[in-house]
């Protein structure tokens, strides 16, 4: 009795992780800007006034617009730099998740008020 086995080689090339890393780190940066701009506007009346680009919404309009712009610009720059490369993803994941965690904590007013 003979056993026949067919081995199918997986020839599909793995996509470099740089593009994913760029999106992950940019999301961490954008999240942190949401928190930092909120704290900054709270501390500075002139920044609060500057961020009030849509009067009915107040400073929140400028804070979030700034965060979205920083997020998208950071994403675009990192994408251009990393899209064809493999980057140390573990380190980038840790940095991005720390930024996200800091954002979550510092949007909590009693913690944000400590700054």
């Amino acid at each position: 009795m003979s056993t026949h086995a067919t081995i199918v080689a997986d020839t599909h090339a793995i996509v470099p992780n740089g593009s994913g890393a760029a999106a992950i780190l940019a999301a961490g940066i954008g999240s942190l800007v949401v928190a930092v701009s909120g704290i900054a506007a709270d501390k500075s009346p002139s920044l609060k006034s500057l961020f009030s680009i849509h009067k009915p919404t107040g400073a929140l309009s400028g804070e979030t617009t700034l965060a979205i712009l920083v997020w998208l610009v950071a994403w675009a720059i990192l994408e251009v730099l990393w899209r064809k490369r493999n980057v140390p993803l573990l380190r980038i994941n840790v940095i991005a998740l720390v930024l996200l965690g800091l954002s979550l904590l510092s949007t909590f007013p009693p913690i944000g008020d400590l700054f």
Partner: protein
Amino acid sequence: MAALAWLAVLSGTYIIYPWYRAAPPAGTANLAAYPRSLLLSHPATSQWHLIGMEWKEHVAWLVPIAITMAAFVAIRYARDLGRQPQLRYALHGFVITSLFAAGIAGFFGAMLDKNAPVDGGNIIQVVQGGKQ
């Protein structure tokens, strides 16, 4: 899901929130139409604004950023995600954190609305124009 997250924060920030934070005219005794001022007018309810709304209005914005990133990575890598565990771990971290953030925003949204309902304006003014 990412589109819904954007719809939620944009409508919340630019449609609902202006109704919530509208300032009452001087001398207004009945603050029912001005939820923010109503909450701040009483020590027993002021923390709903000072902690609840202040947290909710910012933390909700973490959700569309995280979910958009997750959607991009899931589409970009598709089946490759199975062979890139580090990417999967990051996606799980961001998605779980953003669900938690959405939970905070949803919880405080519900509680704020119970304590000071946002009814919206009777008049919808799209463009502020001068007198004719």
